[in-house]
């Protein structure tokens, strides 16, 4: 049973990517109902509260924090195995608030996404430091947009060059796990735009294999975590 919570208040992409654009949130006696794609996958995003795709959420930090609190407190998720929280870039209000509000619930950890170039790694090192600062465990790092194989000649190009060793080197230096590398595949963007599952649409893609391996490693981490917690209890 999976819940996906989108706390990117200014740029909520999850509804479109899940094929849920135009859906609205319903209230019940027990709170806000998430929007379900499948029986076992529910989604919440500010996108569902906006009436037009042109609506801008021009809010300062405190108002954003208020909505995030509501999302965590008032959404009737039911019993779930995984709550996945998608965040905007940065180390600011949204990130501080979600860690704070979830502190009692015990977060398993964070998955950090980067692309291979130093310009990206530069910011991701800060994100890693943020996690250390707020005592958020790091499950690992994913290197996205990692190489492109030309569909015609099959040669590989490093469109976003790992000039300083990419995520691999950074992870070694900072002692965090590299969960995997995902290559560029035009089908990924297409599936997201259409709101369809890339993993189902392109099962043979090397990117699908990468995603699945990464997901497995995340599950293994969480299983190990749960086991350790139960031992303590």
């Amino acid at each position, binding site marked *: 049973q999976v819940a996906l919570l989108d706390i990117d208040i200014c740029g909520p992409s999850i509804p479109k990517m899940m094929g849920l654009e135009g859906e609205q949130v319903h209230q019940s006696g027990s709170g806000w109902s998430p929007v379900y794609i499948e029986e076992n996958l529910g989604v919440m995003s500010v996108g569902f509260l906006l009436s037009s795709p042109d*609506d801008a959420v021009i809010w300062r930090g405190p108002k954003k924090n208020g909505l995030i609190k509501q999302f965590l407190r008032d959404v009737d998720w039911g019993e779930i195995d995984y709550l996945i929280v998608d965040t*905007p870039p940065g180390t*600011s*209000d949204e990130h501080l608030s979600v860690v704070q509000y979830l502190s009692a619930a015990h977060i398993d950890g964070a998955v950090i996404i980067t692309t291979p170039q130093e310009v990206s790694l530069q910011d991701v090192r*800060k994100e890693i430091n943020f996690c250390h600062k707020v005592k958020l465990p790091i499950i690992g790092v994913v290197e996205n947009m990692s190489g492109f194989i030309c569909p015609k000649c099959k040669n590989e*190009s490093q469109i976003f060059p790992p000039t300083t060793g990419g995520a691999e080197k950074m992870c070694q230096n900072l002692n965090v796990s590299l969960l995997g590398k995902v290559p560029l595949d035009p089908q990924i963007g297409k599936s997201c735009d259409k709101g369809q599952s890339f993993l189902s649409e392109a099962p043979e893609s090397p990117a699908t294999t990468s995603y699945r391996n990464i997901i497995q490693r995340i599950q293994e981490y969480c299983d190990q975590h749960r086991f350790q917690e139960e031992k303590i209890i």
Partner: protein
Amino acid sequence: ERSNLAGVRHILLVLSGKGGVGKSTISTQLALSLRHSGKKVGILDVDLCGPSIPSMFRVQDNDVHQCDSGWVPVFVDQDKSISLMSIGFLLEKPDDAVVWRGPKKNALIKQFVADVAWGDLDFLIVDTPPGTSDEHISTVEALRPYKPLGAILVTTPQAVSVGDVRRELTFCKKTGLRVLGIVENMSGFVCPHCSECTNIFSKGGGEELAKHAGVPFLGSIPLDPQLSQSLEEGRDFIQEFPKSSAFPALTHIAQQVLDGTLQRSS
């Protein structure tokens, strides 16, 4: 007392609703192109959490000094035709995270707008983080008395990116910020081995959005590994790679900005 922005002829903002689309890249290349047209350019980097501008000019290890009128911006070379201000210069260590809530960010942005001694500039380019929040509201408010020329909005071609940039357009409308146009970045990739073009991030979304919103379309920039490499090394792409695939589109954007300002003054 003369304001620090009194000598700045034109102010323009680079915005996007979406992260990772290339705002800092466009800001950097625009500055370099304008410099090559003989202009003096400043870049104000108000991305406090992820300041990319200093390293794109290879001056990330520089310090900022004070003078009587405030902070002295960092010049990228002896030429002194491009100057920068960024929180990147104020960090003790480059990996230090700026974990600030809105009010603290707003305070620094106000200082950045008022207290940098730019001197005389033809253009001040303001590079922003993605979104429509504290940084954006504060920057637009602080710049309002100086009547910015307007904003360039950057998107990649896919619908997911365009979806966020539509909201950024609304932000501009609501805050009275003129939209100079939309740039579609990462628009196609030509394989250097066989010249096959692949639309990795789809194609056309930026141009369609411009048409739909009734704003100028400033052009499509292809994915160009030489551009990425130049940014990694802090090199002057416009000077060193005039034959590279992104060069024509980037210089065309600068030309449209120059043409636009000429129209404005007449």
